[in-house]
């Protein structure tokens, strides 16, 4: 029993080691978020394979992404953020995409509630 647990532990440590071998990179770029809900939407949009960690900072309007370049490109991330309706410093969301953002998140202009 204990031997099995021990082997399992070794396997976990070893696999973590293998994962660590997979090189990660970090990128930071500007995204037009205005509230806590935007933060959630932006972070959720990047919750995909290849992205290890995402953190959107509402104060600086910057998102920091740790990712595996072998699995995802930075361009793709910009596109994914546009797809949920947010502009980035490289590309803008289309009107159709923008229409998806929630009322309190309408950063471009304002619609009466």
């Amino acid at each position: 029993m204990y031997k099995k647990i021990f082997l399992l532990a070794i396997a976990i440590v070893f696999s973590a080691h293998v994962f660590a071998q997979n090189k990660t990179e970090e990128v930071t770029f500007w995204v037009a978020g205005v509230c806590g809900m935007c933060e959630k939407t932006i972070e959720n949009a990047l919750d995909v394979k290849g992205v290890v960690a995402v953190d959107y900072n509402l104060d600086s309007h910057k998102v920091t992404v740790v990712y595996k370049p072998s699995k995802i490109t930075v361009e793709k991330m910009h596109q994914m953020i546009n797809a949920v309706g947010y502009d980035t410093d490289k590309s803008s969301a289309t009107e159709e995409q923008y229409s998806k953002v929630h009322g309190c998140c309408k950063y471009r202009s304002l619609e009466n509630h």
Partner: protein
Amino acid sequence: MRSWICFALCILSWSAQSQTIVGDVQDADTKEPLVGAVVIWKNSRAGTITDLNGKFTIGRIPLHDTLEIQYVGYMTTKRAVSPNESLIHVALKVNMEHQLHIEEHQESLHIHGKDPHKFQTMNEKELCKAACCNLSESFETNASVDGSYTDGVTGTRQIKMLGLDGKYAQLMTENIPDLRGLSTVYGLSWVPGPWIKEISISKGAGSVLPGYESMAGQINIGHKGQEMKEKFFLNLYAGNQGRYEVNTVSRHELTHDVHWQLYTHAAMNNGAYDMNKDGFLDNPIGNEYNGRAQMSIEKENGYRGDYNAQYLNYASQSGNDKWDVLHPIQINSRQERWNVQLKNGWILPTSLEQSIGTQMSFSDHQVGVDQSLGRKYMGHQSSARTSLMHMLEWNHEMKLTYGLSANWDRYQEDLSDFQKWSRIERVAGGFGEFSWNEHDVFQAVIGARWEYHNLYGNIFTPRAHLRYSINENTHLKVMSGLGRRTANVIMDQPGIMASNRQVVLSYNNSPNGPLGLPMEVAWNSGVVFTQKAKWFYRDASWSLDAFITDFKQQVVIDWDQTGEVNVYSLHGRHGKSQSRTIQFETNFSPFKRCELRMAYRYVETYVDYETGRRSLPFISKNRALVNVAYATKMFAKDKRILVDVTTKWNDAQRLPSTADWPAELKMPDQSPAFWIINSQVSLAREEKWDIYVGVENIFNFQQKRVVVYSNGGTPETTVFDANFAYAPAFGRMTYLGLRWRLGGGE
């Protein structure tokens, strides 16, 4: 109706003024455009941010005429916009004071590295992790507060902090001392979890401002208030132990500066189960009704008022599960309590930051317990408390709070086979706390209170907290302070009603104290080290703390004598009593959407009992906890599944001595060490609803013998004592619940 007015106003404003405003935001000194500055209508959620050239376009909204412009590192600026204006320029000044804007934290358990008093704050998300019907059960995932197991008769789950009974922790609601005196032990079980926004836990003596009654720590309960996102919150719960609950919270707006909330709770325990087959019910049966109304007023002139009132009615029945024996054990208990709190605060319009606050609270609590063996207890507590406070702040570096407070308590108690006694406590005096924060690196908070107590004379209570921040993420805190309280022999130990042991008083020669007992006094000192870090690219923290509580005076409750509960003053015997704890805790996220908490706590206690030095009963020397919370990726647009598993390991606990009891009634000297695993799975739709299913004690660990009982045929020859619970008697418990939020988010 409202939308009609809104619509009418829109039409009006359309015709009267330009619909959109165009502007730019720049640095006041360098004239450079500020990209991504937030431009928002004051007191609304409507806003926009500046583009790459520092320009913005914002539509007007009804009833708002002031824009607020925010940018990190700059001073937030307000700009009034007249009806005809359509183009505005804003220049922001760099914020020299470097005030950090701390936003709402997402973590469910926030570790306070910097706050000199606070240790951690559990928020709603954390409270949702446990079955958590009431707050005495909400510490399942917390390492600092231990929950004990109910004896099946009183039905309370008492808490322990720093290896000491919950009575040594000061309970507060909305920062006002509450649930004191006769309510101390039951108190937390009368706070329904779904009403709560957050619980702050301070270990050690804590701040001196709320009073002298904290010895092991402070627990402050914050109810949901006007900031609640949804307008109506409903919680339904059903557990296979036979408990059903309905909880609601609703938020109302009277005018734009007067808000009120209504809370209701109804619980029914009709599960007359005896899963461990010892002939006694595992949990008491009965009903609880609880209601609360809360109102807050916030005026433009700096006034803020918070008022609330609460009423509780609780009735329970416990004892033998069958009534066919001669002289069966039956215990009926009734409790009724109401309380009112009134808080006023004024921010004074002076250049120096200062405010004045007043607090008033009133409560009345009646208890009646009837035991079929002939013992009866009646208790009645009426309390009133008032305080006046003045707070001054210089440059955010120095802060002084001082004031006056007065407290009045009347207790009337009657234990049928013991005596009838009563007391009135009147305490009045002054207090002060000075905080000096040197560049946020070093902070000292020194406070004291001096009061005159009509029974115990002059009392002085000093406390000091020091914090040194080695860097932004590494904090060291050292604290020491005195705490004191008046013991309530019966209600501090409701287990007395779950036995027919005789209550025996000795060494009770304090001239004025109730029952001749002295005031309990303890020095508490501690060290806390907190390190925040980034592990696996995400926020992580670990902390190590050590505390010593040294009783200068204590009312010792000794359960080790056969057929008796001995109550005596520690000092009368020149004895010592101490508790020492060390705790390690770490919180981190090993991979996306997964949070892991691991904690280990060591505690060592000793008390000089009449018959020698022994450790406190029902304390596990070692205790470990692992909590894993995992959320799946969002699916079907806004749904997720959350899984939470908590594993707890409890070391052996000393049980009250039964060495001189007849062989067939003897209990072991120690409990076995045991594991408890709880888990919960919920399906949640963000901010709308969630359904949860959970299992507590998955591996069905059960204490077979909780009650020592031998039916002698008459009350005199019967031996009955239910005070041996160290583990769940019910075993595995499954539950199902729903949380539903209506009218959230806009």
